Structure formats: structure tokens, C-alpha cells
């Protein structure tokens, strides 16, 4: 029922006018769609909507069902709009429509079964002619249930736990996509030599056990990149022996650094004697032929500026010459000290306290011995390299009395933990970097770039642009800068549904042309590339 059509009894008009007026949609309806997905802990409850912890998409297997919920609010009063006739429209592989009505809390749900593989775009609109102020959409990827044998090994980041698959708190979308197509038992996670999973007794199968007897205190996932690279080589050999097919590696953050060192043939093992080092390097080189693809997800390729700060002054405001230096970024000169300190403090708190004195921290410091060593060797040409890295881009606007001066220059902040920096394999920028796309062309408007000759390197800058008024940085950090720190492509957010789920704001160019759209979400793109390699598309 349209609440505006309600006519109160004349005697109670005054009182009811006040009540009805509060519910009349003065600014139109605000419709927000949510996809129910237990794997990503998205129940689309009213409290989830209130907390903005909803996702706008899901990955499902054909013949299963998908529940879509919508919340309808008055855009002005933020009150629920009950009893509003609505139509869900599914476009794409499983085109259909369904008419529903919002309940007393302004909520409505729609369940449908996907019968065709492909992608659906779901929208919802009132059928009563009510004004719509805003409406979101949802994306569902439908996959054929398959159990393709293709060993996939995921390498987590510093300070993390190898039981990431079982825990289902990070990378849930990616694993959901892989799990639908590939044999579940052949998707494994790598254990660091000092993995937290050992300490917690939650190590996944095939992890060989810690290298230290004092695991209760020393298993903190902060061992050296070199040691883990050698361990990774052993694991690849073992995996290949068990499955009989080349292994695909996926690494997040420090996991990417471990993969990179392994792919370079473990050229540097400073804690070992030369004889040991040769044996370790030989192990790595022997395992290299059994790798087919490497995916770097916000990976530490050239180190993190945070580690530089940790190793030294622990005071980001003193950073100059940081690749975004005052001398070369004049527009940002006056805000850089405060901006860098804010980012440092924000990210440091969320990193969970890696030990600045650990071997991992030393290896992940820009220009470290580890980085210089692995930079000397290219990735073997038989291995395809796919790099995804966060690219927060800040513009700075200024108010001059009544006049607003929009920013025209962009400050590249990477994923805040890792600057993007140079694509080159051999580069060692002083403040580190995450990009890796050797001999590639410049990124296109969507951030994608690839080898100019051959097909070995592909990279996607996950661009997220923010405009911040200088008054929101100086004298005190305000909401818009806080929002920048919460970007979905921020280093610590990239593993979460806000960045991964279908329909999220993080979209990448689909180089396979299999999604049916120019862009798609990151997890789905990774799946499509794998499927393309495996001839499944």
C-alpha cells in the first residue's frame, strides 16, 4: 500500500498527520540488495544492513538456489518502507522476473535456482511507481559443478595462519570459486616453517611440521622468506608427485615474496653455509618445472615502506624521498608528513603486530638482501605471472574562502601497505612496491597492463580513487581520509568480501573475455584464467 494514500479520520488528523508525515517517502526509496551466502557470513539480516556488512553477489553452482534480499528505506527518514510492491529482474544467463512485496521491516526476499552457467545481474524496482532515490544491483556467477584436477597451492601472508581454508575468514570468495570447479582435495595451503597453524595445532594436511622444537613461542609465521621459499619448493615437488600435474601458486602479501624467491631459484640463503645454500637452491630449481602459473595478490615484490619505518625511526612523518617525495610531488608536500603518519598508524594497528626484528620483516624491507638477490633472476618463461595490486589514488582539493579548487594531480598510495611502484623485475625502489609486470606496457584506464611481447606477465592495478579536502587532513584527520584508509583495495581488506565478492566495487578487466563483460570481480577473473588455461571455457 502506498502510505501517501492513507486518509486519517478528521478528528485524529493532527496526530496522525505527524505519524504519517514521518513515514511518507519525501526523497524516494533507497533499495539495497544483498546476496545470502553462508560461506561469506552474509545473512542479509536487518542488523547486517545496518552495519553495512552485506555483499552484493555470490558464486553458486548450477542447480542450487540463491536467496536475494532487498531492504527498502525512505531515503530521507531512513525508515523502512513496508508493503511496497517490488519486482526482481534477473538479467543474464538465467533471465527471469519475480514480484514480491516488502514486509513490515521494509525487507523482501527472492529465491531462484540457476539452471545455466554464466553471470546474472539482478536488479529490483518498485512496481507502484514510487520514486527511487537509489538502487543497488547484485551479481551471481553460476558455475557448473566440476572436479577438475589441478593442484593449487595458496601461500598466506606474514603473521597469518595456514588454516585459511578451514577458517573461512579470508579469501572466501576466491576459494568458493575454485572449489566449485576444481577438485577440493587439490586446493591446499602452504605452511610457513614457523606457521601459526603448527602452534595452534590446526595445520592443514600435507604440512610437514615446524622446523623448530620451540613452536609454542616461535611459530608466529615470521620466518625468513628464503627458508620458506625452499620449503615451498619441497611442497611443490610433493604436490606434483601426488597429483601428477603442474602446480599453480597463489600468494598474498609475504606469500608472494616467498613465491617470487622460489621462482628465482632461491638465490640467496644468508643463514646457511655455502654448501647448504647450493643444496637449497638446487631444490628450488628442481621444482620450478612443476609450476605453471603464479598469482600475486597484493604481493610484496619490492618490499613494504612500513618495514623501512619499522626498521628505523618508527616515525612516518620523517619520511622524505619516499617515491612520493615533497620534491617531486609539490601539491602534496604540505600534507605528506601528516598523511604518511596517519596511514602508518592506521595500518600498523591493523597488521596485528609483526615483530620488527623478525627475519621476515628484514626480508620484506625494501632493498633487502633477499629482494636484491631474487631480483637478479627472471621468472622462468614457462610460468605465467598474474599480479593484482591495490592502487589507492588520492586527489587533494582545497577551499579558498568560498571557492572550491578541485585537485588535478594524483598521489599514488598503492594499497597503503605497499606502494605500486615499478613494474620491472629488477627494480629496487627505496620505498618498496607491489607491481610486477616485466617489460609491460603502461596500464590502461582500468589499470590492466601486460607484456608487450609474449604473454608471460599480466597485471591489474585495483584502482580506487579518493578525493580528500585538505581540511580533512589538516589540522585533524576527518571522515573522508578515514574512508580512504578503509578502501576495499587496502592491503588488509583485499582478502575480504568487500573487495572479493561478485558485484563489489573492485572490478578488473576480464582478459579472458569469458565473463561476457569488459570487467568482472577479481576472484572470478582468477577462476576464468585458470579455466582458460585448462580448456574448460
Amino acid at each position, binding site marked *: 500500500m502506498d502510505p501517501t494514500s492513507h486518509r486519517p479520520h478528521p478528528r485524529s488528523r493532527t496526530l496522525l498527520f505527524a505519524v504519517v508525515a514521518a513515514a511518507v517517502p519525501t526523497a524516494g526509496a533507497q533499495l539495497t540488495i544483498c546476496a545470502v551466502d553462508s560461506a561469506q557470513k552474509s545473512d542479509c539480516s536487518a542488523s547486517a544492513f545496518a552495519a553495512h556488512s552485506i555483499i552484493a553477489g555470490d558464486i553458486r553452482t548450477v542447480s542450487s538456489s540463491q536467496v536475494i534480499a532487498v531492504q527498502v528505506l525512505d531515503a530521507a527518514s531512513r525508515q523502512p518502507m513496508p508493503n511496497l510492491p517490488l519486482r526482481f529482474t534477473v538479467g543474464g544467463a538465467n533471465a527471469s522476473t519475480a514480484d514480491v512485496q516488502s514486509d513490515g521491516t521494509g525487507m523482501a526476499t527472492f529465491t531462484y535456482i540457476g539452471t545455466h552457467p554464466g553471470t546474472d545481474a539482478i536488479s529490483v524496482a518498485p512496481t507502484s511507481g514510487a520514486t527511487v532515490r537509489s538502487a543497488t544491483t547484485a551479481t551471481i556467477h553460476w558455475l557448473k559443478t566440476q572436479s577438475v584436477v589441478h593442484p593449487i597451492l595458496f601461500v598466506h601472508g606474514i603473521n597469518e595462519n595456514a588454516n585459511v581454508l578451514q577458517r573461512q575468514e579470508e579469501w572466501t570468495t576466491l576459494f568458493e570459486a575454485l572449489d566449485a570447479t576444481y577438485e577440493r582435495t587439490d586446493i591446499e595451503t602452504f605452511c610457513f616453517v614457523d606457521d601459526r597453524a603448527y602452534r595452534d595445532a590446526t595445520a592443514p594436511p600435507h604440512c610437514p611440521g615446524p622446523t623448530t622444537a620451540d613452536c609454542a613461542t616461535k611459530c608466529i609465521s615470521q620466518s625468513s622468506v628464503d627458508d620458506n621459499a625452499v620449503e615451498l619448493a619441497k611442497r611443490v615437488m610433493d604436490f606434483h608427485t601426488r597429483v601428477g600435474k603442474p602446480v599453480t601458486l597463489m600468494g598474498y602479501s609475504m606469500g608472494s615474496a616467498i613465491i617470487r624467491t622460489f621462482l628465482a631459484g632461491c638465490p640467496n640463503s644468508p643463514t646457511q653455509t655455502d654448501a647448504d645454500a647450493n643444496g637449497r637452491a638446487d631444490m628450488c630449481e628442481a621444482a620450478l618445472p612443476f609450476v605453471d602459473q603464479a598469482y600475486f595478490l597484493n604481493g610484496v615484490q619490492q618490499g613494504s615502506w612500513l618495514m623501512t619505518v619499522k626498521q628505523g*625511526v618508527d616515525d612516518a612523518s620523517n619520511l622524505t624521498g619516499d617515491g612520493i617525495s615533497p620534491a617531486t610531488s609539490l601539491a602534496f608536500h*604540505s600534507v605528506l608528513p601528516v598523511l604518511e603518519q596517519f596511514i602508518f598508524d592506521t595500518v600498523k594497528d591493523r597488521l596485528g603486530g609483526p615483530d620488527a626484528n623478525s627475519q621476515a620483516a628484514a626480508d620484506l624491507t625494501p632493498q633487502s638482501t633477499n629482494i636484491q638477490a631474487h631480483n637478479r633472476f627472471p621468472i622462468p618463461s614457462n610460468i605465467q605471472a598474474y599480479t593484482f595490486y591495490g592502487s589507492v589514488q588520492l586527489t587533494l582539493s582545497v577551499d579558498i574562502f568560498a571557492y572550491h579548487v578541485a585537485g588535478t594531480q594524483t598521489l599514488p598510495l598503492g594499497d597503503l601497505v605497499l606502494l605500486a611502484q615499478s613494474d620491472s623485475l629488477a627494480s629496487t625502489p627505496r620505498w618498496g612496491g607491489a607491481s610486477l609486470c616485466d617489460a609491460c606496457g603502461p596500464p590502461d584506464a582500468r589499470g590492466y597492463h601486460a607484456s608487450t611481447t609474449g604473454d608471460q606477465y599480466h597485471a591489474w592495478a585495483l584502482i580506487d580513487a579518493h578525493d580528500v579536502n585538505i581540511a580533512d587532513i589538516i589540522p585533524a584527520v576527518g571522515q573522508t581520509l578515514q574512508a580512504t584508509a578503509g578502501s576495499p583495495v587496502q592491503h588488509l581488506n583485499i582478502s575480504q568480501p568487500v573487495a572479493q565478492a561478485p558485484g563489489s566495487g573492485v572490478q578488473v578487466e576480464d582478459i579472458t573475455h569469458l565473463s561476457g563483460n569488459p570487467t568482472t570481480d577479481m576472484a572470478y577473473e582468477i577462476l576464468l584464467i585458470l579455466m582458460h588455461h585448462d580448456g574448460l571455457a
Partner: protein
Amino acid sequence: MRSSHSRLSARRRARATGGIPLLPRRIPARQILQGVARRRPRLERWPTLPILLAVLALALLLGGWTPRTSAIAAQSGAPALAARQQLASGPRTVARWFDPAGRTAMLLALLESQGQAPGTLTFTLPSGDEVQAQKLGPLLVLARELSQLSPDATFDVATTVCGPAKLLAAKAASGAGIAQQVNMVLGIHIGQGGLLAYAGLNYTVVSPASPVLFAAAATSCVLTSPQYEMKAGCSDLKSPCAALLTPAQAATQYDQSMVAAAAQGNWDTVYALTGQAVTAQYSSTAAFGALMQQQVQRVGRITALTPAGAPSAIQLNAQGQAYFVAQDNMTLDHNGSTSQKLITSYYVLEGGGWRFWFSCGAGSHC
């Protein structure tokens, strides 16, 4: 597949990069310290005692406000600035100077800060590379003096420092040249409360094979024909530094240029007095002027800017930035309709002069 030989060679090379021996530390033979830091006498004319005590108490409560500032506010009878409670003041851990024209910068660590040694000097070259020196005695002395210096103090010091330093590349293309040892000759001239500075720099890359170069440089610690200069209010080692306008003078100057520009459409003066946050984004006065004219058409013409009390004193935040805050009553004429609004604006020290930084717009935290 690479050969074991090539791999081993690379491993050896990797280990060799970290082994450059440090040169012996030298204190320059000659130090020329001109002038002694001394605080300017307190105001000669004091307001009545009760008012002074009240303002003093408020200043102490807010933290970081000198009695002199409060005295000025009390003398003028100006209302306290709304922004005062939000000023990000703190101990001055670093001193920072910037030469936008030369694209050079200099930073001197004043206090121990999480392991950063006082006296550490960083000179940023136009390329973004840095020359960094530590543990050179005169720089430590200078840092100690500046850390205790009020921004309104009379202060004029010039010295030449020689010694070992590191050249840090902002972006190294390869493993080579990540941090090179250099011999540095640095002339520094610092004036007016440490707000203004000049620095001239020469450096020579030290070859591990011939470290004698430093000894040669140290015996004649004289700066001649500097390779790089940083001019932030002082132009050389000897000439007097330019006089810095008071906050009130600087704010009034900007106000007047703004009103004139809005009336006449010539934005050159406003552009010249505006900070790099704007001018580096609109690199010509023409582009800036066109934008401002659009804003005048859209928002209205500023016909008057009247100071609402005295500006704040000069502030130095923990990041070494000098700034002050001013408030104006702005009169705006939009299609014949006049409105007034109280505007808070910040001014920042750049290149040895006060530049307009920003105004606090709607929704900001100012």
C-alpha cells in the same frame, strides 16, 4: 635453466653489496657560528593582570600556546579562534624547509624520536634522491638549539659542515647504487626562529678504492659553487634572510589580493600568495584564474574580507610545519544578493614565505 655457476656468482655479488666499510667520522675543523639564539623580550605593554591571567590559563590549558600569543589576542580584544582547540601542536621533533622553485627540501631531526638520532640531516634533491648525514657535531648542536627555539625568536646562524653522508636513491633501477657513500660539504644559514633557511650542498661519491677524497674535502671545509641549493627565505650564507611578515600582515595581504582579484579578474597576486597544494595542481596563473572566475560566477564575488580578531601565533606541529590560523568575516555578492559568513583559514610557511593553505569548508573538521 641457469647454470650453478651463474647462480653462485650472483649469490656472492649479493653478499658483497652490504659490506662497504664506513669511513671514519670526522668533525669539521672549522665551524663558523654567527649569532647566538636569544629570545625576543616579552611584550612591553601588558594588559590588565586579571585578563592576562585568564588568557594565560586558557593558553596553558590548550597547550603549546605561548604567553605572547595570548597577550596579542587579549590586547586586541579578539574572540578566541574557533579552530584553536583543534590545532595539532606538539613537540617540534623535526625542522623542515622547502624550496618549491628549486624543488629541494631539507629536514633536520631535532629530538630523539623512536630511534631517530637528533642532528640527522636529510637534503632532498630535485630528483627525489636524498643526501643524508648523521652524527656530525655541528648539526647536533644546531638541532639542540632549534628544538628549544620559539618561532618568534631572533636567531641567525650560519655554518659549514663537512663529512660523510649517504646518497639514497628514491628509485633505484637495479641493485647497484642503492645507498652510496658520499663526501658532503653543506653550508647552512638559518634565520628568524628557525623558520627561514638556506642550504647549499656539494657532494662527491666515495669510491671504495679511493676513500682519500674525504680527507681532502675535510681539510678545506668551504662551500664553493654549490651543486644544489635550498632557498627558503634566506638566499645564501651571508646575506640577511628576508623578513617574514607577521601572521596579521600576511593574512591581510591575502585578503586584499583576494578581494581585488574577485573584482578585477586578475588572479596573479592571489596565485603567487597561495600554497603549493593549489599552485602545483594549476601550474599556470591562467588556468588558476580561469577556475577562480568560474567559481566567482557560480558561488558569487567576494566583496570584503574583514579579519575577525587577530590570527593565531605561529604554530609548529610535530611534523615540523609552521602555520597559523586566521578568521575573516567574508561578504559575498551573488547576483546582487549579499551574504556574510565567518571563514577560518590556515596559512603555511613555504619557500620562506607565508602562503595561503586552505579554508575550512562545510563538513570539515576545522
